[in-house]
Each structure stands twice: as structure tokens, then as C-alpha cells.
């Protein structure tokens, strides 16, 4: 059989930002009708490499060939003309435009005047590719999966034959991921070359034909998916053997530490974000919170920390009501929150301040006199750097300069240092690679063994099933049920996340989220 020509071939690609080499001598190729997975830890240069195909960056050296012809890609416009389309991890859509207008933006065939018939044209085009989209729907009204579909339709409309998807499954539920994979298989069958960036091994094995692996910017190898397994891929990716099991130590549980009953919270726009939610956390357990992004997780965390007013309901900590207390009082009771937002630095740490100063942020008022006591802060910083193996040049390095995993360790380290009895942590491993993630899980498990109650708002269902004791599922601000992690499955959680499965009244004698030995009833008895 004659060897088929590559749709894309990259040879010896190098790219550095300042003194940091993001890609070193990378080789990559993909054939038409093939799905190539690009695998690597965070910061291994996957997105950088793909951005050189989509025209965002230019390589410092190396050659790119499209259909065997050497090309230079100077701008996204060039990439588009060459038939390369990229679905970025953070969607490149104009929120206030309709679906049709987002596609029309980059269309250069129709005339200068905007005509009404663009809506039907776009719908017809989408249907031709097998998608059903509402061309008049505004992007801000769309769910994440709809936006992703729109992005895919967009690149197809521009005639892309080489399609790059950057972490497309990060924001999808299990069911949506399955649907996306069907789409990818269909595009593969129609002769498109597809590159999918991911760091989820099970997905790599499920969807790809071949896997290219990057580690710290260097090209490691390309292997056939059929002839490899998770263990071997991890070794390529991390560079050594890694134990892929998350521990779930069994710890004796205490009575509920923090109980929430019928809590209602509004979001910034004044709409109900959390709708009559009840749950409780015991000491020595990790309660996971699963849900599609933006289902009230942020508002819930903020309310517990006292940063957001509570419309209705009770919040009882060790039998005492904490609704309406200022954040500082809540902190003093031993409830600590670490929320890792999407940009990872937005909440909790001051990026341009040093590790020491960030340690001091929460206790600036405890030192005597008007001056800052850096000495104890520095000692504490040194201690957590040692304990959590944080990689930093010194305690005085601005947090901004540390890598994502180390930033998150600083944040968690500070929270733990205060000796909390309840830890609220949202997305603590967001954007972290396998090694750093496991370090964070380890920190949380150690706290759990010390009898701390942990609320873990997470994204990765596999991890939550392994790490958490119980998992609460949120769907549009409502609890769909609380399940034992060892008794549930990804599919069940996925159905609950979309609201298709409601397990709130699974046990007739005990509604989900209300403890049998609740301290709230004690209170009511006392009062009554």
C-alpha cells in the first residue's frame, strides 16, 4: 500500500518565550481520516504547539507542511486559508452575537451587506455537517456544549480539513463527551484530520488512532493507541513510574461539623444560584460537589465563607448559627475556603506579593503594633514550602512567578496552617498535572485524617469517585442527591448533573442532605 500523505507534518519545531523553551524540537504528523491525541502534562507545550498551527504563534525554527507542501503560517487568517481550524479551550466566540453572526464574521464569500438570509444559510450549512443549531440564539444564552458545537460548526463552515480541539472534554459531562466523540468519529470518516489535546488517558485510549506525547516541551514519541495502555502512557508523560491510585483512608467520622439547611443564595445578577440546598459535612470526611460549571458552586463557596449574603436558610457550625457573620468571624471559627478560579490567581492570593506576604494576608491583624511582623510569616512560609514541597527560589518570590501547582500549594498550605476544622476547596487541582494533583489529594487526605471536614468542589468525576466519601450533585442550583462515592458511577453522576436523575428522595426515611444526628434538631429542641 502506498504511504498516504500527511495532512499536517511538523518537523523540528522550537519555540521559546523569553528564556523559557515551550517547545523543543517537536515532530508531529497526522493523516487525513485519522485522530491524533496530543498528550502531555500541563505546561508541556501542547497548546503552544497547536497555536503555531492556528497562527497565534510563529515557531522560532522548524518546518510545517500541509499536504506535503511547506507553508508559513503568520496569522489565523493564513491558517484558515490552509484549512486548519482550531477549537480553543476558551471559546473564541462573541457573547452578544447570535450563532449565525459568529460564523458570518469570518465568512468572506457573501457580500458587504448583512442580509437576513444568513440565518437560514448557516442553519443549512450546519445541517449539511449533521448539526442542529439555532442560528438566532445568542451565545450568552448557550450552554457550554452548545458553544462547543458552534465552534465546531464554525471551523467546518470555513472549510477546515484539519481540526484541532484543545481540551474539548474539560467542560463536558460524560454524556456530552460521548456525543462529541461520535461527532469526531463522523468527521474522521469523512476524511478530516483531527488533533485532540487532552490529559485524560481514558479518553485518549477511547478516541484516538495514535498518540503523540510531549513532556516539558520535548517531543517524546508517537505510539499507536491500539498497542499501548494507561500505565505506559503515564510513564511517557511523567517520565517515570507513577502510582495511579488515589487513597481513600477510612477515618472515624464525627457528628456534623457544618450543616446547611434549605439554603438559598442569589448570584451577581440577582437570579437564584443556590436553591434550597441542604447538606452537611462531618469531621473526617470529604464531601464532593459535582456539577456542570456555573451551577452555583462559586456562590455556595462564597456564602459559606461569608462573602455572599444568604437569602434564606440556616448555616450551622458546631451547633452555632453562622448566617450573617462577617468573613473574619467565620474564619476564626475554623472554616477556611480556598477557591481556585479559572484564571487560578483570581481569588485568595495576591499574585505580585511574595509567598511570605501572602501567608500574612490572613493574619495581618494579629501582630502587635503598627508594623508588619514578617519574621513569623517567613518562618511559616519556609515551613509550608518544606512540608508541601513547593518549588520556589525563595520565600520572597512573588507568587505570580511560581508554576500553577506551586501557587495552589501555597494557597492550600496557608489555609491548612490556620488549623481549620472545615476546609472548603473548589477546583484545587484545576489545571494541574498528575504529579501536582496527587500532591494536593495527599494534603487533603492528611487533613481528613486529622478530623477536618472537607467540602471538595471538583470537575473530574473519576477523581471525585476515588477521593471523596460522599458526592453531592448540583444541577442549576438544586441538589439532585447525595450519593456514596464507592456505590456510584460516572454515568449516574452524569445523569444527575444534567437533571435527568433525581435521587433526593432515594431513602424514604431520610431526605438527602439532612443528617440523622443533626445538631439543628438539638437546637430546635432546646429552643422549643
Amino acid at each position, binding site marked *: 500500500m502506498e504511504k498516504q500523505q500527511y495532512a499536517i507534518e511538523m518537523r523540528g519545531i522550537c519555540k521559546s*518565550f523569553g528564556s523559557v523553551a515551550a517547545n523543543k524540537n517537536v515532530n508531529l504528523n497526522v493523516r487525513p481520516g485519522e485522530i491524533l491525541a496530543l498528550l502531555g502534562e500541563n505546561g508541556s507545550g501542547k497548546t503552544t504547539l497547536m497555536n503555531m498551527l*492556528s497562527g*497565534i*504563534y510563529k515557531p522560532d525554527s522548524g518546518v510545517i507542511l500541509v499536504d506535503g507542501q511547506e507553508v508559513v503560517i503568520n*496569522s*489565523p*487568517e493564513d491558517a*484558515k*486559508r490552509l484549512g486548519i481550524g*482550531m477549537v*480553543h479551550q476558551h*471559546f*473564541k*466566540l*462573541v*457573547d*452578544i*452575537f447570535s450563532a449565525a*453572526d*459568529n460564523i*458570518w*464574521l*469570518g*465568512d*468572506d464569500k*457573501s*457580500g*458587504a*451587506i*448583512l442580509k437576513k438570509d444568513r440565518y437560514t444559510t448557516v442553519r443549512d450549512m450546519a445541517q449539511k455537517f449533521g448539526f442542529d443549531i439555532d442560528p438566532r440564539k*445568542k451565545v*450568552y444564552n448557550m450552554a457550554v456544549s452548545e458553544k462547543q458545537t458552534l465552534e465546531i460548526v*464554525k471551523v467546518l463552515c*470555513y472549510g477546515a480539513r484539519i481540526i484541532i480541539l484543545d481540551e474539548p472534554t474539560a467542560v463536558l459531562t460524560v454524556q456530552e463527551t460521548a456525543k462529541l466523540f461520535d461527532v469526531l468519529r463522523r468527521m474522521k470518516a469523512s476524511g478530516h484530520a483531527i488533533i485532540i489535546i487532552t490529559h485524560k488517558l481514558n479518553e485518549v485510549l477511547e478516541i484516538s488512532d495514535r498518540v503523540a506525547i510531549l513532556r516539558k516541551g520535548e517531543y517524546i514519541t508517537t505510539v499507536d493507541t491500539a498497542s499501548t495502555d494507561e500505565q505506559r502512557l503515564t510513564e511517557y508523560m511523567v517520565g517515570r513510574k507513577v502510582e495511579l491510585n488515589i487513597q481513600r483512608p477510612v477515618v472515624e467520622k464525627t457528628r456534623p461539623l457544618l450543616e446547611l439547611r434549605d439554603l438559598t443564595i442569589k448570584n451577581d*445578577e440577582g437570579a437564584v444560584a443556590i436553591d434550597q440546598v441542604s447538606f452537611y459535612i462531618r469531621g473526617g470526611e470529604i464531601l464532593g460537589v459535582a456539577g456542570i460549571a456555573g451551577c452555583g458552586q462559586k456562590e455556595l463557596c462564597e456564602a459559606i465563607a461569608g462573602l455572599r449574603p444568604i437569602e434564606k436558610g440556616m448555616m450551622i457550625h458546631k451547633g452555632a448559627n453562622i448566617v450573617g457573620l462577617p468573613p473574619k468571624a467565620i474564619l476564626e471559627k475554623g472554616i477556611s475556603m480556598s477557591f481556585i478560579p479559572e484564571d487560578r490567581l483570581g481569588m485568595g492570593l495576591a499574585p505580585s506579593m511574595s509567598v511570605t506576604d501572602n501567608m500574612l494576608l490572613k493574619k495581618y491583624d494579629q501582630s502587635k503594633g503598627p508594623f508588619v511582623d514578617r519574621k513569623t510569616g517567613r518562618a511559616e512560609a519556609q515551613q509550608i514550602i518544606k512540608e508541601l514541597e513547593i518549588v520556589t527560589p525563595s520565600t520572597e518570590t512573588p507568587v505570580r512567578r511560581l508554576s500553577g501547582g506551586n501557587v495552589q500549594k501555597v494557597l492550600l498550605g496557608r489555609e491548612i496552617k490556620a488549623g481549620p476544622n472545615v476546609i472548603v476547596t473548589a477546583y484545587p487541582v484545576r489545571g494541574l498535572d498528575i504529579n501536582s494533583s496527587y500532591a494536593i489529594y495527599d494534603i487533603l487526605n492528611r487533613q481528613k485524617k486529622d478530623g477536618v471536614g472537607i467540602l471538595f468542589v471538583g470537575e473530574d468525576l473519576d477523581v471525585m469517585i476515588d477521593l471523596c466519601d460522599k458526592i453531592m450533585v448540583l444541577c442549576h442550583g438544586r441538589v439532585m442527591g447525595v450519593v456514596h462515592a464507592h456505590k456510584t458511577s460516572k454515568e449516574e453522576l452524569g445523569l444527575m448533573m444534567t437533571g435527568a436523575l433525581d435521587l433526593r428522595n432515594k431513602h424514604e426515611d431520610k431526605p438527602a442532605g439532612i443528617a440523622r444526628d443533626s445538631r439543628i434538631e438539638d437546637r430546635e429542641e432546646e429552643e422549643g
Partner: protein
Amino acid sequence: MNDPINVLTLFLFNIILVNIPLLYGTVGEILVEKSGSLDLGVEGTMAIGAIFGYLAGCAANSLAVGLLVSFLTAGLCGLLFSLLTVSLQANQNVTGLTITTFGLGLYFFVGKGIGERWPAMTASEGLVKGYASLEFPLLSKLPVIGKALFSHNILVYLGIAIAIAVWWYLNFTKTGLRLRAVGENPGAADSVGVNTLLYKYVHLIVGSGIMGLGGFYMALYMSGSFEGSNCWINGYGWIAIALVIFANWNPALAILGTLVFGFFNTLQIYSGPLAGVFPGPLGWLNAIPPQLYKALPFLITAIVLVASSVRKREGSGQPAALGLNYFREER
């Protein structure tokens, strides 16, 4: 002057005559802001368009030359702003303020430098004629509104035509769509092959040029008399920036905004005469201290800014990337 109909007619006539420069400034700024640039240099840009447009118009004895030169010199301010903020990624607020300071400084520098040799508008037949009122046949003969609406100088009609043209351009052309995308999410526009750099440059230059036309109008309205103490623009540039928000970044609404604002602005001058000829219904106008009238346009501006700040994101015409510089390779 004491005829009630006459006073009312003049009042309405002046609402339009005096305030159209605001419309130029507002529409220019809308075009600029839709590309994602917050240009606070409107005042300076208008001043530069005013003085150079006027001097060139006098020298050439031609309104068209005045218009062209005011457009081009103000457009240079836009080019300067683009160079600094688009190519060199300078802070937009600081750059805008710099242009205002620079524009006003240049205005006084040139005006005072010319001194005695300052050309009088009356000496330029071309400007006087060009600025003269045009009477619409038939329509201008209508009572009250004939004078108030249909017997203005050509720059009034040009301003309104530009506002409508920009409105149409933004909403009904593909370049307009792309421009809005650049202002909303330059990364998205860039990723589908829109030349964001070019869009920002062109619209900053054209938008600034339109502001310059407003400045030129002010020069003619002030009969071209240069005073060493007060600039012709006299704060209109700043009010235009507020009117952009009032108009919700919609050039058609900017016409309405100009009239509403102009109403209060003109009331300041006409409160006395209006109270005089309508002692019954409007006599209370005289009871209001004149200082309040002076403050009224600015009070209205403040109220408008507060009111529009509570508007919901979805209904707002404010470009999401307004004031943010775009650099493709930024991570």
C-alpha cells in the same frame, strides 16, 4: 423677541444649532469605542480639528477645505492614539488624557502665536456662505418647526447624516459586524481571520476625524473669534464621552441624546425669555437660581451615568473589550 411663538421657535432652533457639535463628538467616539478603544482625547481632538480646520478654511476661503483639514488633523490624533495603544500597547486612559492636554495646548499655542494676524471669519466669504442657513423648500415655511428643524446650516444636516450612516454601517454591514466583534472579543475576531489591528487603526482615525468636524462646527458657531482664555470646545468633548454611554453606543440614539442634553443646555439661556412670554405655565423657571441651570447639563450627565451603570450586561451596547489592549500572543 416678546412674541411667545418667536421665543419658542428660537429656543427649539438653538437646541439643535448649539448642540450638534456634541453629536459629531459622540458619533466619532462611538465608532472608536466600538473598536474597543476608550479614547479620552475627544476634547483635544476636537480642539485640533477646530483650529486647523478654521485656519485652513479661512486661508482657502472654502468650507470644504475647512471640513477636510479638520477631519484630517483630528484623524492624525486618532493615528497617534492607534500608534501608542494598538502598536505600542500603551495604556488607553493615559494616552487619551495626553491627547486632550496636547490638543488644548496646541490650540492655545497656535492661536496665541498668530496673535494679531488671526483671520476673522467675516473676511472669508467662503466660510460665511458655507455656514449660512439652508432653507428647505416648503418645509421651512411651516410654523415653528419650519425654523426649528428645516432652516439650519449644512453642517447640522451633515452631522445627522453621519450619525445615521454610522448606525447603518454598524448594524447592517459585514465590516460593521466585524468591527463590533473586534470591540467585543478581539481574540475571537482574530481567530477567524479579521485583521484586528487594521480595524482598530481605521476606526480610530475615522472616528477622530468625525470628532474634528464637530470641532470645526464649534469654530464657525463661535464666529471664529479666538479668545486666549477659553477653548471653543469648552468641555463638549467630555460631555460627548458621557453621551456615548447615554446613547448606549448607538449612533441613532445619540441624536436623541444630543437633543435631550441640548434641551437642558439651552434652557440655561432661554429660561428668562421663556418665563417672560409664558408667565403662567413657565413663570417658575425664573425662580430657579441661574447657577442651577449652569450645573444642569452636568447633573443630567451624572444621573445618566449612574442610571446606565445599573443596566444589564445583555442589553448594554458597551463593547466587552473596551479599554483593553489586544496582543495576540499574550497568554
